[in-house]
Structures are given as C-alpha cells and as structure tokens.
C-alpha cells in the first residue's frame, strides 16, 4: 500500500515541480528564436509584411527602407538603412549578410540603448506575433538586392559563426585572462582602459554612412545594443559590427580568448543600487572634501538614473549622462556630496557664441520640438563644458509636495548647486549656487554673499568625480536646510559638453531623497529594556513558583 502511495506522491510532486519550473521560466524564455523557420516568401506573404512595415516601421526606417523616416533625424544611433544589406548584429562572419534568424532576433528583442524596441508580442501586448514578424522580415529583405543573391547566402556559403561548446564558466581567472587580452588586443584604444568609451581613438569615429559613432560605454549594461549577456558579447567579438569601426576578432583571437574577453567585459558591468533614499553618513571629524578621500568608502552609494530632457522644448533624446552615483557625508556643521559619472571626454571650455537658440523649434506648430542628433548643435570637443547640478527644493515642504522636477515654478522655486568644468579649471572650485523658478528662465546665480558651496573635482579614466560641500544650515531663506530626520528631495541635471549638451539640452533625473539619520529617541531604548525586564522578571517568578510547588 505504502509503496503505491509513495509512487503517486512522487508523480504528483514531480508534476507540480515541472509545472512550477515551467511557469517560472516562461517569461525568461521570451522567444528570440523562432518556433518555426521562416515561411516561404510568397507575394501575398510579402504584401502582408509591407502592410505591417508601413504601419509600424516606416516612421523611423522610411518608406524606402533607407533609414530616413520622419523620426530618424532625432535619434542617435539612427534607424538602420536596409538598402545596403549591411546589418550590425548577426551570427555570421564579418561583412556577411545576416541570417533570417538574426533578423528575427533583432525584431523580436530589439536593440537596447537605441530607439529599436522589442516587437515580440509575448513581451509587448501590441507587438507582433511570430508570423507577423516573419512577414515584415520578408518585406525588409526586399530592400536590399543582396538577399536575392544565393552566392551571398551565409548559410549556403558556410559563413555562420557557431557558438563553441564546453566553454568554462565565469570565474576570476577567466576575467584576469580576459583583461590581459583586452590590453593585448588594444580594445582600450577606443573603449578606454575601464571600458567607458574613453580611448584616444574614441572621438569622431564614423560609420559607413558617414554618421558619427559614439563608442559604447560597456560598463552600462542597458547600453550594449547587441545584448549584455556574456554570449551576446562573445558574438560581437566573433562577428564584428558591420558598417562600424568595430572589427571581428575571429581571426586574431582564439575561441577561448574571445570567451575570456567577453567574461572580462561582463565583469565591468555596473550593478545598479536599488535605493531611492540616500542615507548620508555621519562622521565624527571633518567631512571629506576631496573625491579621493578614504572616508567616502564607508558612505552608502545611491545610483540615480538620468534620461534626456524631453519635458520642454528644446527636447533632447540622446542623453550623454545616464547614471550618476551619489554619496553624502555630514557632521554637526557641514554636509558634502560626492557625485560620480562616466563621461568619456573632459570638456572644460564653453563658447557662448555656440549656444543654441531654440526659438524656431519651441513654438506651436513647429516641425518638431526635439533637437536633431547631428545638424542642429555641434557635438564636438572644445565647444560646451561638462557640468552637473544638484537640485533641491528651495524650501523644505512637509508631506509629499515638491516643486516640479524640471526646475520647479514661480511659487515653488528650486535651489541648484551647479558645478561647471570650465570654471573649475579657472578658479579651482567651479561651484555656484542658483535659484530657478521654472525652466522658462535660466537659473539665476545667487549674490556673492549667498555663495556658500565649495567644490573639488577630478576627471580620470573617463569619469568625473565632484565633491560639493556646504554648511548644513544657512541664514539664506532660499537655501535648503539639512535637518535630521527629514526626507529631502534631491535630483540631478547633468551636461556632457562634447555630446552637445548645454542649457535645457541636458540629462536629468526625477526626484530621489537624501536623509540625515535622526538620533534614536531615548524612549525607544526604555521600551525595549522594559520589555526585557518584565518578561525576564515574569520568567524567574514562574521558576520560583514552580520550584516551590515541587517542594
């Protein structure tokens, strides 16, 4: 009897386990591999694809598939031009056409860090079913004659790049080996020693179409277009990225070397903190004033994501700064903030005659209120300065109310602590306190007597580190005051000069909070002690009673 029950139980358990694991793994499996190969591209099939293309793709990729749709000029990277048959993300050898499955993968999961998003209807409700994706791919293939040439078919000519088997798992040794290869293969000439896209050869690279290319900062996983998994990174080394300066290393490096290199790149990826509140670290002595002060090591970091300023014209959808890591340290008198962000090039000049006048794109009925990626503003070295600003409400408001995160308004002004690289170069501080009452007017610097912040900054290996310091309390009614136990709203504006950013053409975050711990009230310790003594006393009293009744 028992044996049978045991067997039944085992079956039930196995079935439940299977169902659970299936249910749990289903979202992760969102198909970038098709269930069936591409159906035959009959005339009717391609026509269906054309209809989908004209509905969902032509706004960016253009009616001719030349990557010149109405939305194209505002995006960097630009939408792909399909007419040359040059595709970046493939599993075929360098310079070859992509396979159908390669195109399927890109349409299904998109290219992160670009305007090309996932179209898999399993990921996005109003996306495209597998059949519809195949239809649109069959139409996209009609744009380039190369797809009709059997001699160029990467499958028939055996130009596929296969993923090798039996590769070692991620380990410190593998990463160390990868690092040595990174140095030997001179990846750092473009990508920089830390992978921040800050190599000497990084600026002013162009793609096959003559458009400027920005070398990717590989430490930000959401910016790696071909995918941030080790397998994806390995593929990029093995296939190269057609149409760009990124070559294939299939001949120069062995499979194992490329795998080690991919693991090293993976190890560089930033792991985001998840806190929305920055707990400032209380220090006994002086607050740290320089970025390299060892005292910063103990302070809690908070990652703040930034994005393009798209709230008001001139809008900008190509932000140069997407992540600022902030720390704070305070004592009884002062508070200091450490801001660190990646910026591949140090820009410490600011040419006022190059400042963009947005009046033509700001009015009602203007063609578009976004700044174009390439023609409107110079995205060049030595034109605009790098800069950052911490933003606080000018007055602390109890409750949830705050000024609007884009510079507040006339009744809810914001206090900005602005640091400018060109000023830092001149007077060794570069910090300025300003008040803004809405984005419509530029922030106004406070009077000389009201300037109370000091700054120390350093640019190294493609990264800025800036310390901003002020006394916690000031006499100024337009300054935020740092009292204990308050959630003080804080946000960031940032400008990457060589990315063309200045004025409202900037990167920004929404509100986060900084918190200075309040001392624990005495009464809480008393409550806890009382609980210990009462229960302890009760216990011993019961013990005595139990012993007495025994006797």
């Amino acid at each position: 009897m028992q044996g049978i029950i045991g067997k039944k139980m085992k079956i039930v358990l196995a079935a439940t386990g299977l169902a659970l694991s299936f249910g749990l793994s289903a979202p992760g499996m969102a198909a970038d591999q098709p269930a069936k190969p591409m159906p035959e591209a009959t005339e009717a099939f391609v026509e269906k694809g054309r209809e989908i293309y004209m509905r969902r793709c032509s706004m960016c990729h253009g009616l001719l598939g030349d990557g010149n749709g109405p939305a194209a000029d505002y995006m960097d990277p630009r939408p792909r031009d399909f007419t040359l048959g040059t595709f970046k993300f493939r599993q075929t050898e360098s310079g070859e056409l992509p396979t159908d499955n390669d195109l399927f993968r890109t349409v299904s999961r998109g290219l992160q860090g670009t305007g090309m998003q996932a179209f898999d209807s399993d990921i996005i409700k109003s996306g495209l079913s597998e059949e519809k994706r195949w239809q649109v791919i069959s139409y996209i293939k009609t744009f380039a004659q190369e797809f009709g040439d059997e001699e160029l078919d990467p499958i028939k000519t055996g130009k596929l790049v296969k993923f090798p088997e039996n590769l070692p798992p991620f380990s410190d040794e593998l990463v160390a080996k990868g690092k040595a290869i990174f140095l030997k293969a001179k990846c750092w000439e473009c990508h920089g020693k830390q992978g921040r896209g800050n190599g000497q050869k990084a600026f002013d690279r162009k793609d096959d179409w003559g458009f400027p290319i920005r070398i990717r900062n590989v430490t930000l996983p959401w910016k790696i277009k071909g995918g941030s998994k080790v397998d994806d990174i390995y593929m990029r080394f093995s296939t190269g990225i057609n149409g760009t300066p990124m070559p294939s290393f299939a001949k120069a490096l062995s499979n194992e070397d490329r795998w080690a290199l991919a693991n090293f790149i993976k190890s560089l990826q930033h792991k985001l903190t998840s806190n929305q509140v920055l707990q400032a670290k209380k220090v006994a002595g002086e607050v740290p004033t320089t970025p390299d002060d060892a005292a910063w090591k103990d302070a809690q970091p908070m990652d703040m994501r930034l994005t393009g300023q798209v709230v008001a014209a001139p809008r900008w959808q190509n932000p140069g700064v997407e992540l600022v890591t902030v720390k704070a340290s305070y004592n009884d008198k002062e508070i200091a903030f450490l801001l660190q962000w990646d910026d591949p090039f140090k820009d410490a000049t600011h040419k006022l005659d190059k400042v963009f006048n947005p009046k033509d794109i700001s009015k009602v009925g203007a063609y578009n209120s976004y700044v174009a990626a390439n023609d409107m503003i110079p995205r060049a070295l030595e034109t605009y300065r790098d800069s950052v600003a911490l933003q606080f409400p000018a007055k602390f408001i109890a409750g949830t109310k705050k000024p609007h995160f884009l510079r507040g308004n006339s009744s809810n002004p914001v206090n900005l602590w602005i640091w400018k690289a060109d000023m830092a170069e001149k007077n060794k501080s570069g910090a300025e306190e300003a008040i803004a009452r809405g984005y419509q007017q530029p922030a106004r610097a406070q009077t000389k007597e009201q300037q109370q912040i000091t700054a120390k900054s350093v640019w190294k290996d493609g990264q800025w580190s800036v310390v901003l310091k002020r006394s916690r309390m000031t006499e100024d009614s337009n300054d935020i005051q740092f009292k204990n136990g308050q959630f003080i709203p804080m946000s960031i504006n940032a400008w990457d000069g060589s990315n063309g950013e200045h004025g409202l053409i900037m990167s920004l975050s929404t509100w986060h909070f900084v918190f200075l711990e309040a001392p624990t009230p005495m009464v809480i310790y008393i409550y806890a002690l009382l609980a210990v003594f009462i229960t302890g006393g009760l216990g011993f009293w019961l013990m005595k009673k139990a012993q007495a009744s025994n006797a």
Partner: protein
Amino acid sequence: MGKFKINRFWSVVATILVIYGIVKWAIPAISRNITSLPFPLTVPGTLVFIYMTLTCVALFALVTFSDEFLEEFVGPIRKMLRGEYTKALRLVILIGVPLILGWQVYDITVPKVQLPSSLRIQHPSSNFPKKFEAMKNPFNEPSKDRVTAFMKQVKADEITFIPQVQKDIDTWKEEADPDHTLQFLPGEAVKKLLAEVKAEKITEATAKDALHQVDLFEGRALYAMNCRPCHGDSVAGDGPMADGFKLRPINFTDNGTIETIVEGYTFWRVMNGGVGLPIEATPWDSAMPEWKKNLTDEERWKIILAEYDLAEKTPRIPESE
C-alpha cells in the same frame, strides 16, 4: 497502538509556527503564481495580527478544554522551570526569551529610513473642465467637406500631407515611381480606393475610409517623433527614455488606462501635461509635457487617433451629452 502522539505543548508550538509561516511566506509566494505579478503580495500587518490572535484564542480554548489537556500542556513548561531538562537550558530560555522580545520591541518602534509613500490619483477629475467630456476627435468622423476635398485630391493625384511625412513620401515617389501616391499606404480601404481610381468611379464611403488611413499614418509619424521616446514603439510605456523616470510613462496597452477615459480627457491631458494636474496627482513627478506649447490641436488629435489604434483600444463613451 502504532499511533505516534506528540505532546500537546509541542503541537501548540508547531501550530503557531505553521500558521505564522503560511500567513507570512506561503500566501505571498502563492500570490505570485495567481497574480503573475513580478512581486509577491504580502499579508498586511494588521491582518497577520488578527490571524495570530485568532490562532492563539483557539489554541487557548483547546488547551483549557479539560484539566487533562491543561496538565499535558503545562507539564513540559513546569519541567523546564524546575530545571529538569538541565539548568543550563533553563537559564538560556529565561534569559533568551526576554532578550528576543526586547529586540522585537526595539525593531518595531525604532524609526526606519523608508521612502515617503506618495499615493497618486492617476485620472484626477477635480480640475477637469466639463466642456472636454463630450469632445469628439474630429478625425474619427471626417466632415463631408474634408472627404469631398480628399476625393478631388485623389482623383488628380495631388495629395498634400503634413510636412513631417511629406519629405519621405516625395523621396519615395521619386524612387519608386508609383501609379498613384497613395500606393504606399496600408489598409484594405486604400486598395479599394486605388481600384476605384483606376475604374474612374470613386465612392464617398471608400474615400472616407482611406482618408482615415491617411490620418492614422500621419498620427503615427507624429507619435513616433513626439511621444515614442517615452511611451515606446508599441505604446507600452517603455520607450528609450522611460527608465530615467521614477513615475514611468503610462503603458497604453494596459487595461484601465486610455480605455477608461473619454477622448476629451486624453486631449486635455496631452494639452496640459503633468504640470496641469491637480495636487492629488503629484504633478511634480510627472514628465508629461504641456503639448499645447508645441503641438497644434490637429496634431494632438491625430496623435490620439493613432495612439488608440496602436493600443487596440477604444475610448470610454462620454456621459450624457
């Protein structure tokens, strides 16, 4: 016998632990499978308290049911207190239990650093002007004059589009040399219209349907230029700019977003943006622009037309007109 009997004291302890485990961990774990949300739904603290109190009351009733039961329950406690399980264990329990309790009291009362919660009304109506309620999208039902004018344009093959899409269409015409300008446009209505053009008998009904396709095409282009950076290619609130906003752009494919509001409300929201919201909707966290500053009424209506179409939703019907 063969029946294994555990002491009533331990069965009481086990019951409390099992029920606490169910409320605290099992229910949230199961909730994930039911709701298929990426996070578990925890049982609220007050409810945990109620469940545990009920459990204790029930167990107390059980234990005090008879003297025999009570004796069985108290037995191990008394034995422990008398030091019959070694004096060391008694000491550990008599000191450990109060310490754990004290720590619990401290943990509950000590102030914690937590994000101030800010509840938000997504579709506030406190400052929604009534005149927008019954407003209709003019492009949903094109006027007779528009249709007639369009028929003329189609016949002469001299169709004007908004400047934003005109350039791309002109390049295409030059390259593809089509029989008729509308040939690029998707939709059965367009195919039907082109057949009618060939046969030289354009009907008003077909022209009207095809004009709708023109409006949708222009709306999608305007959407791609203006709204896509945040709301995404597939109107799912996941555009390339979306991750930078704590208050994420709305996913129009979700139930309960644009299908629960009237078109006039959408128009009003697009017009006044985040800063036009009343305070119960936390305007300071919203990145939604005041589009009245940049887009014309026509452009905004076309975008709304395309947005409902891409999301495969229809707006709510207005209250009595």
